[in-house]
């Protein structure tokens, strides 16, 4: 089992969600994060220009069986891309075990 974590633009969330559903990834968690990166956002307030490197993004955490790893990553890579600096990152890591709390069962079946 793998954990696929992705930091994406909020504006791309809807497209990524649809793409994940299309390849059969229906369960995942997400939350809003603030981070620092290469991108700078320019602003003007009452005649004073300022730029902020505090960037708002959405963080997705998806745990899948090994055979879903590739399609999941592909779906995010395609749906979340704009080609501009700031599109985000994907991290992949191993998951040792998964339990379903309701029944106590264990293993890859719980992710289906």
């Amino acid at each position: 089992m793998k954990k696929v974590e992705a930091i994406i633009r909020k504006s791309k969330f809807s497209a990524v969600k649809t793409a994940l559903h299309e390849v059969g990834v229906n369960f995942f968690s997400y939350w809003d994060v603030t981070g620092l990166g290469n991108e700078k956002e320019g602003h003007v307030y009452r005649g004073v220009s300022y730029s902020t490197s505090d960037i708002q993004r959405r963080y997705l955490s998806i745990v899948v069986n090994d055979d879903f790893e590739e399609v999941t990553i592909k779906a995010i890579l395609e749906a979340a891309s704009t080609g501009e600096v700031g599109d985000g990152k994907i991290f992949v890591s191993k998951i040792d075990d998964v339990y379903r709390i309701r029944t106590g069962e264990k293993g890859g079946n719980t992710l289906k």
Partner: protein
Amino acid sequence: MELLTINNVWMMICTALVFFMHLGFAFLEIGLTRQKNTINILFKNIFIITVGLLLYCLVGFNLMYPGEFNGFLGFAGFGLDSPLTAEGALDLTYSEGYTYWTDFLFQGMFAATAATIVSGAVAERMKIGPFMIFAILYVGLIYPIAGSWKWGGGFLQTLETPFYDFAGSTLVHSVGGWAALVAVCLLGSRIGKFKDGKIQAIPGHNIPLATAGVLILWLGWFGFNGGSVLSADPGLTSLTLVTTCLAAAAGGVAAALVSTLLYKNLDLTMFLNGILGGLVGITAGADQMSPTDAIMIGSIAGAIIVFAVALIDRLKLDDPVGAIAVHLVCGIWGTLAVGLFGELASGAQFVSQLIGVVSYAAICIVSSFLILFTMKKIVGIRVSEKEELEGLDVHEHGMDAYPDFRMNEH
């Protein structure tokens, strides 16, 4: 009798509209400041309107309208004392435009405005206790004494060419503005406003609320200026509303244009400040101007706002909501404009307007400096660094403005 009834109804409507302006001020101030200081600002605004009204009943009204007096300071006694007829009923010959009670309440609504202007300028860093003491002294004593010089029949009214301030560009707005300037100088800037000599932006947390505040203030101004006719005179009240609205519109457009040209950015907050600048500017002569004059005065006020905001920043003075630019600078401009535009325009009038501006500058700067400087030396007027960074809401009031939800930036 019927005429008095009509006049009085209009004056009571205007009283209600001026009351509503306090909501406008509250919205504008919290909108242009940070979320962590919202409760503090609302507390100050509510304090000012409640305590201000009580003080105006206790001493203010009779300090401002003492009857016959030496022209500088008079007092007709504590509390309200309505004039009665021989039969003991309310004496309706008090004025053709309103009853004694309406007179008190209309003027009382004005009184609180001056301190509210200061509240915005000192936002996010002033201790609440000293602010309350300042507000009590300023609304209770200074505002009515200063007001008596002109509206109470004092020395500015008895000049050879009387000083003219129709609804308070100077008497209300500059009186608040001068104190705001003094307070900002004594307080210092917010942490983070100037870094290594460079001006930093500290964006407000709720621009929709600030916008609502400005539109509410504009609505309130129908009463502020419309009621200052002091009767329902059909010609004068309608002209006043037209000049008021045209100046507001012209002020907004001019500020938006100038700031767009200067900063290459469509800045809504400048647009909003421009509207207020136009309103403050027309207030001194709203009943004396033609529509063209009003548009001129408003547009100049709007342009002034943009430069004044930049100048105040440049002087390393920190005025989070632009109160000094709007109320002081445009208040002075509007007052002087009476000598340049409209029915009263003349050299002699301009000199009288100048005398008025200087007189009010003197009383306001001296009195607010004495009050604030004394408190600064004795108890301190600024919150601790920790308190300022974490927010006045939690430290001064033990509350959050929005405890249950977090606002997303996008």
